[in-house]
């Protein structure tokens, strides 16, 4: 078994190369992890909606979306219309994938925001609150 300092030092070149060639996950993996996050967070919100905020003594801000979800009849109809929890899960996956691609398009895809800026096309960035929110948190 070789145990010379020289040979062990030579390992540094292999380690450095391996770090530069670090394996990267496919976009599908990142999208699935994003979808899982969305499902988990949505499940918390649904669980919160089962709690009457007034009885629980909590503020409305602690139950995001409770004004919508508090009406269980509407929520149940909405959920049923999507095909139950399975359908809702599929919708969450698709939405999360879309948000993910919007945030981090694959390298071979052009950056849509960059294209708009470069082309000088005037776009009302703030035509919707959602767009304004996304742009306000976009990493530079």
């Amino acid at each position, binding site marked *: 078994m070789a145990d010379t300092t020289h040979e062990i030092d030579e390992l540094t070149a292999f380690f450095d190369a391996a770090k530069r060639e670090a394996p*990267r996950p496919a976009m599908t993996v990142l999208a699935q992890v994003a979808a899982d996050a969305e499902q988990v967070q949505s499940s918390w919100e649904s669980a919160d909606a089962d709690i009457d905020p007034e009885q629980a003594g909590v503020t409305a801000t602690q139950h995001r979306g409770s004004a919508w979800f508090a009406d269980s009849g509407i929520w149940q109809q909405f959920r049923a219309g999507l095909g139950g929890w399975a359908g809702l899960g599929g919708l969450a996956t698709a939405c999360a994938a879309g948000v993910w691609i919007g945030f981090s398009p694959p390298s071979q895809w052009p950056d849509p925001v960059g294209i708009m800026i470069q082309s000088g096309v005037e776009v009302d960035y703030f035509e919707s609150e959602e767009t304004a929110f996304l742009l306000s948190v976009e990493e530079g």
Partner: protein
Amino acid sequence: MDGSEQMSGHTTGSSDPVVTGALPSDDPESDDALLVRFAKGDRVAAHRLNTRLTPRAFAVAVRVLGDRAEAEDVAQEAMLRLWRMAPNWEPGAARVTTWLYRVTMNLCIDVRRRSRGRSVGLDEVPEPEDGARDVPAQLQDKSRADALQVALMQLPDRQRQAVVLRHLEELANPEISAIMEISVEAVESLTARGKRALAALLAGQHAELGYNDG
């Protein structure tokens, strides 16, 4: 990333690693802060944690398992457990990455146990490419990286884990100690033995990989 912190390597018997001396970061973009925000339903925090942590879990899993498909499953499962655990996360108690690495390693151990007896054939791991003297630097890096991965898969599991965490993920020994639930001295022993074994395995490939060009 979490700021650098001095850590000792003691762990509790619970599933959550406790690294004494860790302090909560004041950085609102630290893993700690993002996880707290995630638990409150912050979707941006979810995106940032995903971008930052999933690749790390995946890279470690690939290097430990030598199988990309299995590593994808491990990384996804590890991140799912992170999401579910988030409401119980105590800011400042430990590093998020320490917790994630530990879960990832344990999942890798489970995978290896299920495949015990089915050795990782070299066909499942990329073969090093033939290296010409004038091969571009990138191809040369890939050849060396592939050769290292082949050699890593010939190490005992614990040596491979320790070497990957120390020399590829560049973690400090105390953090590795917390991840692997062993003493710092045991970490040092595993990495030393692993490196000696790797050096021996790779000794005959320097010329093929264009190593002698410095």
